[in-house]
């Protein structure tokens, strides 16, 4: 059985078929990219998986568990993390606080224990802090640790959002256009991190991306979408030469 799979996923808004009978599977430890022209349904698929939308029909499975009806917070607790194209951070908090909120799904202490300031609470907090420091080191965020998000440049925020997702120690991470708004150098860093996430942290990656050079550098497989349907699926070079994909991009 596949690690993650979508079966016949469809999302219709009235007569508009944003996603139409899309099926695919992600293997454990794989980096899979979804590409396609604007309006192809890439973000819709992401929003279906992370349960912002409910599918019109179809099913989603993660580790052989049906997650189609789960609420968003439950998805996070199962070990699926995501980032957003437009960055959704806690703006008025420090980088460190943002990452610590990322630890929420691992919080085990009870309210009454916290109100009594039990030693176990303190020990727990220290453990969370250690994990977060590892992520900060992994993504070279030391200089920003105690800065407020609202004062940081776009490129850094993008990395912080990734760091927050990693702080939750996900099994599967969904990256929504990780390179959008980044310069060439920052995109290079991003491509290294995405690969390291898989090799060093063992995280499976599903991403939506426009930058073909990034897609080619990191992906094991690529899915090309157009008008809510899958055009082609396979290794990056193969998919890019697929006649339907070429036609969709060139508008022929």
């Amino acid at each position: 059985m596949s690690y993650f799979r979508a079966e016949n996923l469809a999302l219709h808004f009235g007569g508009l078929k944003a996603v139409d009978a899309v099926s695919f599977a992600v293997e454990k430890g794989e980096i899979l990219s979804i590409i396609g022209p604007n309006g192809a349904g890439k973000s819709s698929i992401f929003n279906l998986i992370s349960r912002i939308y409910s599918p019109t029909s179809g099913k989603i499975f993660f580790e052989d568990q049906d997650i189609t009806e789960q609420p968003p917070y439950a998805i996070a607790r199962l070990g699926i993390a995501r980032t957003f194209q437009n960055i959704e951070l806690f703006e008025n908090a420090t980088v460190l606080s943002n990452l610590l909120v990322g630890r929420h799904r691992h919080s085990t202490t009870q309210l009454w224990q916290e109100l009594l300031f039990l030693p176990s609470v303190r020990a727990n907090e220290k453990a969370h802090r250690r994990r977060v420091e590892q992520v900060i080191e992994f993504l070279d965020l030391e200089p920003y640790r105690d800065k407020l998000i609202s004062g940081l440049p776009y490129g850094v925020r993008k990395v912080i959002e990734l760091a927050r997702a990693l702080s939750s120690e996900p099994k599967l991470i969904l990256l929504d256009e990780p390179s959008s708004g980044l310069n060439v150098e920052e995109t290079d860093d991003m491509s290294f991190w995405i690969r390291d996430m898989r090799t060093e942290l063992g995280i499976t990656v599903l991403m939506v991306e426009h930058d073909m050079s990034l897609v080619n550098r990191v992906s094991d497989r690529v899915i090309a979408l157009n008008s809510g349907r899958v055009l082609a699926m396979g290794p990056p070079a193969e998919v890019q030469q697929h006649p339907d994909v070429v036609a969709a991009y060139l508008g022929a």
Partner: protein
Amino acid sequence: MLDFVQQLVSGVALGCVYGLIALGFVLVYKATEVVNFAQGDLMMLGGFFAFTFIGMLGLNYWLGFAGAVAAMALFGMLAERLVVRPILGYPQFSIIMATIGLGFFLRSVSGMIWGTDDFKIDTPFSQGVVRIGSLVLADDKLSVIAATIILCTLLYLFFNKTTLGTAMRASSENMLAAYYMGIPVKRVVSIVWAISAAVAGCAGVLLAPITFVHSNVGLVLGLKAFPAAVLGGFGSIPGAVVGGVLIGVIESMAGFYLAEGWKDVAPYVVLLAVLLLKPEGLFGLHIRKKV
């Protein structure tokens, strides 16, 4: 001088009640960006619950107090579930109208259940006074101040030191992100409503010996607490309490030193002045949009 201190203490006590109601405004606003105009009426309901438990059923004061606050917490959750959640996502205007409607509803229903007379609750603080030299301070007023300090400290610890409190702050800052950190945002919002109704209930019980309980008490005080919340920056918890105390003190001083009629106007004059000079309120965050 003596008069001044006397007025100051009763102003602070009244202001604490405004502050507690304002706190309820702020908690709900921070969590859901909804202004709950029924907040004053929730306070009124807390007073009536306490009257029922203590005055009618003859419970011990502290038991009755705890019972009223617990009942209010439940009622807050219920109000969120029945009145607010079904219309979340619709324009602000609809939600505000719904909370105003909830206020009307609560006033009418409590009038039907408990009648329109003034009720009094006997409390351990009803009669006593504290004398410091020739200064005489009523216990009931001091109890309001003490209770406000205790409540604010508890809330501060809760919001800043516990996981649930942190989850609440996260949800109020960015709901979407909070969801994907594994925070059950809907449950969190319902707990926020419970807390804000419970705080309003506390205010209602504390106020009972001072102004009596009647079905319109919440409307009047709610209208005073709203400027307190605005003064404090609408969104800041310490701001709400400081705003409330300021309004209370100004009102009480104006009533004593100025001509008849100034008492009710003075707080609004100060509010207008503050908003002219510092539009984000005393404790408000200055938000500049990045372009």
